[in-house]
């Protein structure tokens, strides 16, 4: 059974009599351990899809099964618990709390899952060292570079050992070299067996992942899936991106 199973997802907004179909019948299966990118032009519905998959939002219609749970009609409380335990978010603007230190930021999800202070500290430091940020644990976000902030955000997303990680334009606010480092980091997570979904408008970034889903006007317009096509994952493309950006 797939980790995520979407069936005919619709999301409509009503703006002054006008109906906006942000998602218009999306069906999709995602298996555990996949590395996927969602690609499409601005306004195509990528973020909306990610928010619904990430339990930040609920669909207007359609069903979603995440890890055996039907989340499309779950209560706000249940959704909060799922976000806390099963999902990690990485955002374009890092979204660290500026008043807290890096370590305190990484501890935040565990505060909401009710872990003791000692355990929180240990796990936060482990998570920080997995992104090579343990020596920045006492810094405030404002004292860090963009790349370091994004690594701290990744550490925070990982700290509760989620089933899936969503990253919405994670390199959108970084220079290209740093962006490549962050992408490498996601690739490494994928190698370790985690499920990662990248959301981007940039085909070059999307090229990093084996499976790519293109969205247009709220519908899946195109999909490259190595499983279906029997295609070999094109890591060479990733290498291309890397070499291109570095030079």
């Amino acid at each position, binding site marked *: 059974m797939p980790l995520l199973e979407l069936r005919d997802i619709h999301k409509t907004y009503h703006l002054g009599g006008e109906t906006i179909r942000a998602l218009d019948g999306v069906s999709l299966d995602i298996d555990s351990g996949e590395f996927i990118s969602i690609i499409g032009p601005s306004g195509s519905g990528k973020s909306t899809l990610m*928010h619904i998959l*990430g339990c*930040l*939002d609920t669909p207007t219609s359609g069903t979603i099964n995440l890890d055996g749970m039907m989340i499309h009609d779950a209560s*706000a*409380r249940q959704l*909060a*618990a799922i*976000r*806390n*335990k099963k999902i990690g*978010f990485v*955002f374009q*603007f890092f*979204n*660290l*709390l500026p*008043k807290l230190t890096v370590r305190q930021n990484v501890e*935040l*999800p565990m*505060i*909401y*899952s*009710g872990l003791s202070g000692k355990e929180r500290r240990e796990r936060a430091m482990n998570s920080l060292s997995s992104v090579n940020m343990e020596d920045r644990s006492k810094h405030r976000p404002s004292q860090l570079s963009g790349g370091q902030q994004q690594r701290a955000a990744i550490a*925070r997303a990982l700290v*509760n050992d989620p089933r899936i990680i969503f990253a919405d334009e994670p390199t959108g606010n970084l220079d290209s070299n740093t962006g490549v480092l962050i992408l490498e980091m996601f690739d490494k997570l994928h190698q370790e067996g985690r499920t990662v979904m990248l959301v981007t408008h940039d085909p070059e970034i999307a090229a990093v992942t084996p499976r790519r889903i293109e969205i247009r006007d709220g519908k899946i317009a195109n999909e490259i899936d190595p499983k279906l096509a029997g295609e070999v994952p094109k890591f060479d493309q990733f290498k291309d991106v890397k070499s291109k950006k570095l030079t």
Partner: protein
Amino acid sequence: MNLGSIIESGFKEIWAHWFRSLLTMFGIILGVASLVTMSSFVKGKENLLKDSLAESGGLERIVVDDNDDLPDYQKHLEDEANGMTLKDVYALQKNAPLVYNVTPVIEKRSYRGSLRVSRKGKRVRYASVKGTWPSLLEIEEHELEHGRVFSDMDDLLANPVCIIGTQIRNDLFGEYDNQGEEIIPIGEKIMINYIPFKIIGMFKQYMSEEDRKKKEEARAAGQTVARRDFRAAYMSGDRQSGTAMRIYSMKNSTVMIPINTLVSKLDSDYDRGSNMDRSLSKVAMNIYDVSTLEKSLQQVRNVLMQTHKGLEDFEFETQEGFAGDINLSIQNERISGMFIAGICLLVGGIGIINIMLSSISERVREIGIRKSIGATNMDVFLQILTESIVIAVAGGLAGIMLSPILVNTLASFADGTTPPVMTAFAMAVAFGFSVITGSLAGLFPAIKAAKLDPIQALRYD
């Protein structure tokens, strides 16, 4: 999210904006401080008034006075009205079972000129000489501290003996001797209208609890305190406290002697008929039970109407009016104090609402982030509520700490009147109000924050 980390993050948030928080707290600080201060002053006054009420015989005391002013329909009988006499006393003893300790009193006061209490050239400024029976001690709540009470035999033989109040001692002997020991002049002679009287007893010193405490503290520190004067209270406009303090002062200026001694030795104006016809200043008595006051008064009236042949030349004096006045004025002061404190707390509460709302709009993104990593609506609600309670509680504690300063400062301005009494209860109530204010003020902002849509919040760039 557990309470500890909620409170911790509440403190962090407030500390991050400590100046703003301090300004916000100001209303709460003032509200709590004024609540505690107001109640200390009201409590001080209440204690004084209640003590003095008990000190003057409490509600169980009835006094029957002469009344020269006959009702209109009896005006033509004025000559036959000869006031209260011992006959009335015996009639009441026999025929009014609802009262006891029926006691005659003839009172002479020094400031009316007819009386002089002196010793070796020193004269008492003010004295009230009461010729009476020993039962008056119980009625007027006198306590003998030294010596003895005069006996029936003293009365029968009209012995020149007296019991004095401490103010009489102070005026004639001084309060302390050279060694700092209290002077107890039992066995000494004093002159009342140039007739020698032997002091056989002395009452304890009557003073309000507050004054007693002050005096003891001062004595322990080897100092003396200036005697507070009821006149100061009158002059500062506090009539009731003045009245209350006058009760203590007058009690301390009492000289009590057997009634027969007074009639036979001090009555120059009385043409020595039967003692039974000597008109009394008043007849005092106790009732067994305060709840039977009305019935008892009626019974006494019935008996006296008989002995006075239907002439209403007497009137009753009870403490009920005084007690009622006390409760009313205490209540009024309490209400007006609560009103002021309530307004301060209201203003403080609105300040908190305001600051929390602006804090939320600054922190839309923070709230979105917290929700995206698993904070429930309840977590966010509690976080904001806790922050507002923490502000209010901090303000409340500061207010409580400020209140002794405020109370002492105000008390020093109003020297000579009722000293305030701070109670832990008042502080607890004021603190409770600050917590309630904080919770109520936090409610609306907390609900608003909890309802924030995380997606909208995260879009906030």
